[in-house]
């Protein structure tokens, strides 16, 4: 979307005015916004990647993660700053999972940070539910015809994280090295195959 200073001006003024009025009225604390920006800045796909790598290397953890995503993430010290639940969906040889929010932009922010722009825009939200294969092809992701695609639609209360398949032939990596292979897009499901580091695509 085209952006210019004048266009942003009125909305930025409105944001400042609303924030100041709420603070003056004691409805929010003066430090609330600054503190929440720090929380937002502390969240990135690296957290989700650490969860995935742990699940690859610790079968008991993986089972707990698939049973209750939020509790398992909290076990790793990842706090949830909202009331959302997290469902973790495992990719297999037979099934590929894809996450969308058709109504708006719900996303597992505590473990992935803020969603990419395309996740919030109509083409992705509209098409994911009826032509996921074509949509994924636009990401360069080709899902074989014999692999089922399951699309999960997020809500205000329930968010989804994909557990990608562990790449083959990397048995000697540490959990941290494994985490470095896991990308945001793979945890949304728009990428299926993770590439061992050093490999050329």
């Amino acid at each position: 979307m085209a952006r210019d200073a004048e266009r942003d001006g009125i909305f930025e003024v409105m944001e400042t005015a609303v924030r100041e009025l709420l603070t003056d009225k004691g409805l929010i604390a003066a430090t609330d916004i600054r503190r929440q920006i720090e929380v937002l800045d502390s969240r990135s796909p690296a957290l989700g990647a650490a969860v995935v790598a742990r699940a690859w290397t610790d079968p008991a953890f993986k089972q707990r993660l698939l049973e209750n995503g939020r509790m398992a993430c909290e076990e790793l010290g990842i706090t949830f700053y909202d009331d959302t639940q997290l469902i973790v969906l495992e990719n297999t040889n037979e099934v590929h999972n894809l996450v969308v929010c058709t109504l708006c932009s719900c996303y597992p922010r505590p473990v992935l940070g803020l969603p990419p722009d395309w996740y919030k825009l109509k083409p992705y939200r509209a098409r994911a539910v009826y032509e996921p294969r074509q949509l994924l092809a636009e990401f360069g992701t080709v899902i074989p015809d014999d692999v089922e695609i399951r699309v999960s639609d997020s809500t205000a209360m329930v968010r989804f994280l994909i557990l990608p398949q562990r790449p083959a032939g990397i048995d000697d990596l540490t959990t941290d090295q494994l985490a470095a292979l896991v990308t945001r897009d793979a945890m949304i499901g728009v990428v299926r195959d993770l590439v061992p580091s050093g490999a050329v695509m």
Partner: protein
Amino acid sequence: MNDLSTLITRLPNDVGGQPAGPLDRSEHELLPWEKRCHALADVLDFRKIINTEEKRRGVEALGSEQIGKLGYYERWIVAFANILFQKGLLTPAELAVRMQAVEERQRSSE
């Protein structure tokens, strides 16, 4: 479905399954005010002032023209103002006066 029946059976946000064009995969870093607006949404939620469903409904209530023309966080801040008016926590006059004060402050610091 034709355009008219879509208009009356679907709220503007309800786009799942509708025809749509190709993806634009470009991404942008949030502007400072956009990040503050996001933080404000989270704070309004945990302070039990506006929850996520109310926010989504507030955006729907802007109507399809505003939804089509405003950007993502532009819709949010306008929706927050409307919801705060409806809840009696702010008045339009208070907001107008404060926005003018903020603008004058910005101008004098330029």
